[in-house]
């Protein structure tokens, strides 16, 4: 967009987060707008519907005390941009990219549009590099790779954000030193932000992080901007500076609610449960910014955290997210109640890119078979647990009883590792030990070759 700025006096109407402008000229869709009241208060806005009769502007700050007829509306002639650069590492900014860490405003190395363009799929490179998170449930069973987007489906009061923080503290990227974290807080509480940042600080992760904060008390609509600003920063660090960037976003549910608010204010025909029909496309515009480019160094890996309303995984927010992301880590209230920590329910959890990141030369040769077998026995144990709740344990067949005992142990020892950091090899070894509590005849997925290798390994260990 190259057109110069223009100024109008007075909007014709305002409702909630929207103001309406009549008979404006040369307005562009997506144009960045500044709304001023006597030089004292400024609101930021963006054109979301440009029309000769009526133009709709979405306002990012709360519109308290915004008198539509009296404001000065400046169309800037450009799109929303934000400063990005290495010097932002270690900094904490608000949703308007203003410092909240008592340091001077960052200048950055560049100003870039926050609404990114889609990567050319033909220029993407296939994500395949293993990231060790230190969590057995992820590294062993649902491996994360560089360039993946893997959300945590949490529930109210479940430790989704804590798990994300634990991953940041423990994560070992394949190329170590050029590793950065971008954190976008969207509508979470001050308490959550503080505890998250404190953990960052203590682990030394803060100096390689850029933090964008929009808390529950901050403007709602700004939440639509914050993740995109964070991603613009991540893309710059990754693809201009060669960093492997891990982007944490919390909470996507608050983001979606902001989206719904705009839809309602525009009197749009709502989709499922009142969320806009274009929510899939909108979320895809965020999540698809993760990835790796063929000819460039860095990577953007995305770990969004969302809260499943009422623990319902079929709710449109987790549902559409799961349809876009490359898997999901699902937390379970039942496991949390039984003090399994982290309470990751492995059955609905999935990493779609796991296969590319594991096996010979990447993790261990038997990784796939090992995980398949653990999954098979665990799933059988869970089925047996369900049946036992109806017919009692004594009504189970022998195979089911064995599987049930296994499932209990597996949840306690393997999944429930607490705050300990486990290397991949510790995870694999633990999985083997648990499998070896079962008769080999039950483990039909493991072939002779794998057993031979395993036996040799154990021999060495002794």
């Amino acid at each position, binding site marked *: *967009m190259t*057109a110069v700025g223009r100024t109008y006096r007075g909007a014709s109407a305002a409702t909630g987060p929207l103001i309406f402008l009549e008979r404006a000229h*040369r*307005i*562009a*869709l997506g144009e960045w707008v500044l709304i001023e009241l006597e030089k004292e208060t400024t609101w930021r806005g963006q054109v979301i*519907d*440009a*029309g*000769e*009769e009526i133009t709709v502007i979405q306002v990012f700050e709360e519109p308290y005390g915004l008198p539509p007829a009296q404001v000065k509306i400046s169309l800037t002639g450009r*799109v929303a941009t934000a400063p990005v650069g290495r010097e932002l590492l270690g900094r904490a900014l608000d949703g308007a990219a203003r410092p909240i860490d008592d340091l001077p405003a960052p200048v950055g190395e560049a100003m870039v549009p926050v*609404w990114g*363009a*889609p*990567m*050319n*799929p*033909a*220029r*993407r490179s*296939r*994500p395949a590099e293993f990231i060790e998170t230190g969590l057995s449930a992820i590294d062993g069973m649902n491996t994360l790779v560089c360039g*993946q987007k893997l959300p945590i489906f949490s529930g109210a009061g479940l430790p989704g954000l804590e798990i994300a923080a634990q991953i940041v503290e423990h994560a070992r990227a394949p190329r170590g030193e050029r590793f950065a974290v971008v954190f976008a807080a969207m509508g979470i509480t001050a308490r959550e932000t503080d505890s998250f940042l404190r953990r960052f600080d203590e682990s030394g992760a803060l100096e390689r992080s850029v933090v964008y904060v929009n808390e529950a008390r901050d403007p709602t609509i700004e939440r639509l901007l914050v993740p995109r600003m964070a991603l613009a920063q991540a893309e710059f660090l990754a*693809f201009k500076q060669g960093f492997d960037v891990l982007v944490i976003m919390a909470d996507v549910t608050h983001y979606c609610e902001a989206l719904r608010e705009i839809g309602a204010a525009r009197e*749009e*025909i*709502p*989709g*499922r449960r009142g969320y806009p*029909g*274009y929510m*899939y*496309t909108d979320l*895809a515009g965020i999540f*698809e910014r993760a*990835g790796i480019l063929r000819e*460039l160094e860095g990577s953007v890996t995305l770990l969004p955290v969302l809260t499943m309303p009422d623990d319902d995984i*079929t*709710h449109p927010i987790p*549902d559409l997210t*799961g*349809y876009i992301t*490359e898997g999901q880590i699902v937390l379970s209230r039942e496991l949390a109640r039984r003090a399994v920590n982290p309470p990751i329910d492995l*059955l*609905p959890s999935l990493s779609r890119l796991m*296969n590319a990141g594991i096996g010979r030369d990447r993790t261990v040769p038997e990784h*796939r078979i090992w995980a398949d077998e653990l*999954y*098979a026995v665990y*799933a059988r144990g869970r089925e047996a647990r369900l*049946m036992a709740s109806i*017919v*009692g344990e*004594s009504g*189970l*067949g022998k195979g089911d009883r064995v599987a049930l005992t296994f499932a209990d142990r597996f949840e306690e020892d393997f999944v429930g590792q607490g705050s300990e950091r486990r290397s991949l090899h510790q995870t694999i070894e633990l999985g083997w030990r648990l499998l070896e509590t079962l008769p080999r*005849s039950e483990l*039909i997925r493991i*072939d002779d070759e794998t057993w031979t290798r395993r036996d040799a390994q154990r021999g060495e260990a002794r």
Partner: protein
Amino acid sequence: MSPARIVRVSGALVEAVPLEGASLFELARVGERRLLAEVIRVAGERATLQVYEDTAGLRLGEPVDLGGHGLTAHLGPGLLGSVLDGIGRSLAATAARTGDYIHPGITAETLDPERRFEFVPGARTGERLTGGDVLGHVEEQPGFVHPILVPPGLEGTLDSIRPGNFTVGEMVGSLDDGTKLRLAHDWPVRRPRPFQRRLAFDRPFLTGQRVFDFLFPAAEGGTVAVPGGFGTGKTVIEQSLAKYAEADVVVFIGCGERGNEMAELLSDFPDLVDDRSGRSLMERTVLIVNTSNMPVAAREASVYLGITIAEYYRDQGRRVAVVADSLSRWAEALREIAARLQEMPSEEGMPTYLGNRLGKLYERAGRVEALGRPQRVGSLTFVGAVSPPGGDFSEPVTQASLRVAGGLWALDPTLAHQRHFPAVDLEASYSLYAAGLMEWFANATHDDWPSVRSESLRLLQLERDVREIAGLVGPEALQEGDRFILEIGRIVREIVLSQSAFSEHDAASPLEKTYRLATLAHRAYRAGLASLERGRAPDPAALEGVGRMLASVRDAPFEDLDARVADAEAALERMGGGS
């Protein structure tokens, strides 16, 4: 009339005046960057257009120019191996212009305008030709003969024709009315290409997946819907079809899905070898890629583009498979556009014409006798993934698909969570083609294929019933006969029908292997029944042995099949009552 200019921009839609002369589905160039758009509504002097590129930055007052024709596919040799976006721009050509990211306002050819093909004429001057007649041929890929057809709708006497090394745009001949004939021609994507007549669904579309080929076979030229919630295995199935299905050409439409999945295809396919041709899989594949974050209007168009390209190869006499992932994203694109038009929605906000349009898409599949001489038979098999919100099949896209598709491969999240793949719901799935295909299977494999299949289906039904009871009373309380049904049912489901896409030797199963595994399990079933009849419960250890043997048959390389089958037969023998 003054030049038309933009008066409104909202999402993917633009309104412009004065455009009273516009016709529906006519193309236009919008704005100073000349974005491609299509007229979708005309009311008085105001026309509404859907824009195939990102509309951010479009400004009121910018110009709009009509293009005079609808969205077309550029059809000719060189499509195989290409990667196109939803409106047919080569993504490699796009990348050469705008680098790693796609920016609006670029034009990029579908076919490489520089590439030359050796054209060998077949028709002679003076010959009377009509649409579909073979003019000559080129070799598109080594070993892949690509007949050049007179475009449907043309007719005349061949005035000139010449052999030589041509680009797709160069003239290779002409008709007496002066019409120039080239290697490539354009065809409107929304208009089905004509053919002579439809043929019966009497041969299968072989997938290499046992659960489909054995239980729910698709017909060549048929249609199948594959609904399933996220993570149930739709994409893996579609990719497996693209890799292993019996087809000459595969058109893979990545419609509104993930960029990394496309990267995976692009990194795998060139190195995978197609067993039939011995050449790279990419050489039989056309990839249409419009990921979820690319413009929605182009997502809507992508499915039509893919089907049109498929029809083009069908007309050459090829067996073409179209796999679309996912039709729900196509439907959502329709919904997004309809909502912006303020159309009255029906269920789930979907436009009222959803069922209609979806039906028309599926109807473009078929096994047909093509237009023109010499006579050719070609087919277009269509397999569409459906992504129901919340995994609930009562939603409109699944329901509309069920009304028209000849097969349903329903996927079940519980099975997927247990990592039982393909996670096919054996109770809900069906194939309306199965009955008509049994004769083919009996002739092409073994006489008893149909009876083994129907008895296996019955066993699985029986096992479901017993499992239900076991869920209430516990397996320990069951009679011996019922416990046996549970065991053998589990063997069929978990060993015979499950297939890991990541397995070294079992990602695809040749028909003979499918037959062997199915019959071995079937014989174990019969043997067990016989022994029960004699008042003896089948030995659980022997049954376990059968399971292990079947697993080893399944996981062995195909060359070892006979040897492993012999071992399994021995295990059966031990179970008592081998044959």
